[in-house]
């Protein structure tokens, strides 16, 4: 069964032991990393959290080359952060580089827009950038280890009503259905003479925006069919399953993973509070 990120980007957790964990454990581990993020204010704390996240990913069998998929996010955010601390604000510290970009004699003084790179500004930037790495690794760990079956069975084991379980399952199926519908509508448009390759960008945008109308109509038709099928099987949104085909219990390893996650958050909270 492919994981959520496996279906979207081909990134999957390969460790069988990690994949055998209960869905609750697989959610708690990345969640505890993300809960530790607010306490990692110094570059050293953020660096340690990056190391913990990387170790967790490695334990789950996720190759760190998966970060390539987030390269654009990492580069653009890092650049934006450095710009924010040098172009949009002045962080007091030892000035490493300074240049005036624009100077205007205004009514109440001189308005100056400067680039000012200081050592403190760079330290702030480093902490922010490291937190981005930890944040991306925790999101990758969550999505690369949770399958849609995990979610649906997990919801069942929590005695959630059918309405919630069916909605979770339909969301994942809906992504594929929408993409396939989109290609159908696109082919229909091409068959009527639309040449997407030669159409200018603005015109293409209008065409795609117009395509939303048949796509939404198809969604309504499909919703009607699926809801009729569910009703004919006697599945009401509020009904719950008394029994299931699959036993989904927490084991010792699951409790250990959950405890490790909670301990991590508590440790970072204590470190952040003491620092």
């Amino acid at each position, binding site marked *: 069964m492919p994981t959520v990120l496996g279906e*979207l980007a081909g990134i999957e957790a390969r460790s069988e032991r990690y994949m055998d964990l209960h869905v609750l454990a697989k959610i708690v581990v990345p969640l505890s990393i*993300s809960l530790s993020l607010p306490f990692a204010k110094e570059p050293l704390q953020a660096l340690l959290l990056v190391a913990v996240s990387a170790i967790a990913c490695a334990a789950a069998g996720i190759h760190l080359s998966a970060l390539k998929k987030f390269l654009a996010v990492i580069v*653009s955010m890092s*650049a934006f*952060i450095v710009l924010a601390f040098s172009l949009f604000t002045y962080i007091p510290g030892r000035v490493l580089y300074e240049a005036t970009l624009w100077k205007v004699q205004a*009514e109440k003084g001189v308005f100056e827009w400067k680039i000012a790179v200081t050592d403190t500004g760079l330290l702030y930037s480093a902490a922010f950038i490291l937190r981005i790495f930890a944040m991306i690794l925790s999101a990758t760990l969550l999505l690369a280890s949770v399958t849609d079956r995990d979610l649906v069975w997990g919801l069942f084991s929590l005695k959630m009503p059918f309405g919630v379980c*069916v909605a979770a399952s339909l969301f994942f199926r809906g992504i594929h259905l929408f993409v396939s519908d989109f290609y159908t509508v696109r082919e229909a448009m091409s068959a009527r003479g639309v040449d997407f390759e030669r159409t200018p960008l603005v015109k293409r945008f209008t065409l795609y925006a117009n395509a939303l109308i048949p796509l939404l*109509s198809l969604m309504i038709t499909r919703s009607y069919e699926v809801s009729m099928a569910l009703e004919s099987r006697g599945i009401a949104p509020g009904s719950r399953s008394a029994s299931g085909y699959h036993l989904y219990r927490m084991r010792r390893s699951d409790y250990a993973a959950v405890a490790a996650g909670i301990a991590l958050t508590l440790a970072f909270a204590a470190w952040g509070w003491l620092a």
Partner: protein
Amino acid sequence: MHIVTFAFATAISYVLAVVSYLIFPVLGAPGVSALYVASAIYVPLGIWMGLWGCLAGYMSCFFLGLYPSGYSPVQSFIWSWADFIEAFVPLLIYRALKADLDFTVKRPRAAKLLPFFVSSGSILLLLGIVIQVLWGVAYGEPFTTIYVVLVYLGAALAVVGIILGLLAGNARTWLAQILSIIATGVCSGLWGAGTLTIFNFPPPLPAELFWPVFVGWVLSDYIVLSVISTALLIALTPVFKRTGLLVKGWWA
């Protein structure tokens, strides 16, 4: 049927959100798009299907936050309320004004010109206010003059847009639609840009980037909501009425 439609709508919004972000990104602010087409789906859905549409916006944004934006689950959980607000504000305006969903167009030319006037007027107003807040208050002239010119020009264009809206068809419905476009962008932009830069666990971006992200967010919303969302409301409201999907209360 509402639950099934909600699940499918969430999936569609998620795919469109990812595509919008990848094609028109606001650089440095993952998940923020300069043309966020997904909002054209869940905002009308909020008007048609009440809180189901708001929930579709929230869930699609939550998953967008996780992948491809790479926010942590907690950051994404908080940030995604921006899209809930984005669908909830129009819903609230329509319910408060007791506007009937009658998008019959009596004057097509007025309906066609309306998005241009409303979005460009609101954008100029917003830019004027941002310039005044950032520099006008502290430095005075020439920023104050720029602010005054932009605000007057923006207000004039927005008023023309409102008049065109009143002429386009059912006056109360179109007034609700125009107010929705204007209020939605600002409300969701405040939460969205705020949770990315000022308040979150922790904010992924520095507080200094609030204004660039906020302006990018609101501009995108004005364009998409006035052009695509209005077109979808005109085209698909009769379909929703026919299929019994239209929600009169909040959930049913």
